[in-house]
């Protein structure tokens, strides 16, 4: 395993004797920990953003368009939730790894990592936006059109602002899930330190190497950052829906 090997090459600092705060700081500022954390947050943010757009588009098609097999597509959206994530990871590796049927090899790359995260977080935005879009008063759009708005302006000024809170809810869940994902990424990412190793896998590696305090320190930092991001998105969402409060 790349992770274990990389960890063992370094001096193990279990019980180094430094006082609490100092030990915490030295653990979370270790270059490998920082790199893993940056990658985790970065790839999760990209994943959330792609989901915001793709998820909204899928929800739109499922609600507003008519096509054959719509019911099947609608049911299949939840597949990533039904599948154990390790199975998802294994499948992705078989499909998009070396010797996969599509001759696309993204194994052990950041793209592979992103692909795995996109797969497991796909349903969040779709399922958050779908009911809101179903309930959306189409007369609002007709009123805007009769007032001279082109379809693009109707979407930008009427539909999108009304979907935004739901999109943000979905994005929040997708981001949170992506930050914490382990099973789906552990196989396809290859866990190469400084390249494709995410925090969850780093923490697991630290635990395996016997560095409990290192694992705990990074866990705490990850928790604090995720919590901060969730609070910020939640605050923005509440501000955006202020008009619903009477």
């Amino acid at each position, binding site marked *: 395993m790349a992770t274990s090997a990389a960890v063992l090459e370094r001096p193990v600092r279990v019980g180094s004797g430094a006082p609490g705060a100092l030990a915490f700081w030295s653990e979370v500022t270790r270059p490998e920990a920082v790199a893993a954390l940056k990658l985790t947050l970065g790839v999760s943010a990209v994943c959330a953003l792609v989901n915001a757009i793709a998820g909204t588009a899928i929800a739109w098609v499922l609600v507003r368009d008519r096509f054959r097999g719509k019911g099947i597509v609608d049911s299949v959206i939840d597949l990533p939730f039904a599948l154990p994530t390790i199975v998802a990871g294994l499948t992705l590796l078989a499909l998009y790894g070396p010797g996969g049927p599509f001759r696309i090899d993204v194994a052990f790359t950041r793209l592979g990592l992103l692909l795995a995260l996109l797969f497991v977080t796909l349903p969040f935005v779709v399922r958050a936006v779908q009911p809101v879009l179903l309930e959306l008063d189409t007369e609002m759009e007709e009123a805007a059109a009769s*007032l001279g708005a082109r379809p693009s302006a109707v979407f930008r000024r*009427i539909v999108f602002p009304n979907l935004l809170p739901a999109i943000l809810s979905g994005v929040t869940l997708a981001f949170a899930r992506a930050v914490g994902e382990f099973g789906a990424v552990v196989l396809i990412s290859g866990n190469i330190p400084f390249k494709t190793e995410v925090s969850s896998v780093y923490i697991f590696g630290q635990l395996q190497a016997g560095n409990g305090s290192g694992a705990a320190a990074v866990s705490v930092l990850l928790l604090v950052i995720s919590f901060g991001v969730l609070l910020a998105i939640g605050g923005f969402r509440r501000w955006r829906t202020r008009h619903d409060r*009477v």
Partner: protein
Amino acid sequence: MSGITAIDVTKRFNGFTALHDVSVTIPEGSLTALLGPSGSGKSTLLRVIAGLEEPDAGQVLIGSEDVTERPARARGVGMVFQHYAAFKHMTVYDNVAFGLTIRKRPRAEIGRRVHELLELVQLEGLAKRYPAQLSGGQRQRMALARALAVEPSVLLLDEPFGALDARVRKELRAWLRRLHDEVHVTTIIVTHDQEEAMEVAGQIVVLNDGRIEQVGSPRELYDSPANEFVMTFVGPVNRLGETFVRPHDVELRLEPDEGSVEAMVERVVHLGFEARVELVRDDGQHLLAQLTQEEAEQLELERGQIVYVRSSRETVFSEAARHPDQPRSG
């Protein structure tokens, strides 16, 4: 400002024909009601004029221009919906300003126009509120200001007061009437309420089953209905075989005279100025009579009493006008 002409408009939804070859002219500057029961096609006709539904056949003219192929945004119509269609994420000000900001008018001009309109619809001081903070009546007045902001050549109202309670509905009807006297824009109001149509409109178009039954002033429709449907739809009516009698044309006497029929009083309902008397004739037919309170008191009507009824005015329709549901030419 422009008149509206629909020529042979047909609209089908999944095999159901909502409008059959409908042709109608709405005079410039008029306030016209499209009146009919639900499913009669009145809202569909309005939406075809607005450009929100595409007709399967026929033409729509606004002024002298054929707008049939034009999208709603380019027709210059102001539309008001039954459930307000308020932009709930925008303030009252931004709702009213929407059409003007789409047209990229200068900010100062928008501000001036919005405040003018808010004054016109009596919502000044509520500009910063959100629709959720307004009452139904206020929301609908905001929607009207929003539609008027773009100076539409025609104003289309789809059951605008249908979601409001009776008292507010009455107030807004009178208010709409006064507003129309001020702004004179050609206006169509869709309603299923004959009283509302009669109270507000100068011209009424009666629709039934996707066809126009009659076009006329409220008085014409009431006094000379073209057929049974219009007769029964525009006001209460007694049907005695093939003869129709309005309740206020039923006369009650205590003594029999020529042409009168014996009847028994079943119930007397006092409604202020008016009293309604439910009767059953000796041949078993039920009859409704409308009297003034004074007349009712003079007769000292009470339940179970025997009276003699005759009608001062009766209407009998020709065979062709008798069955308006059957397809017919013209």
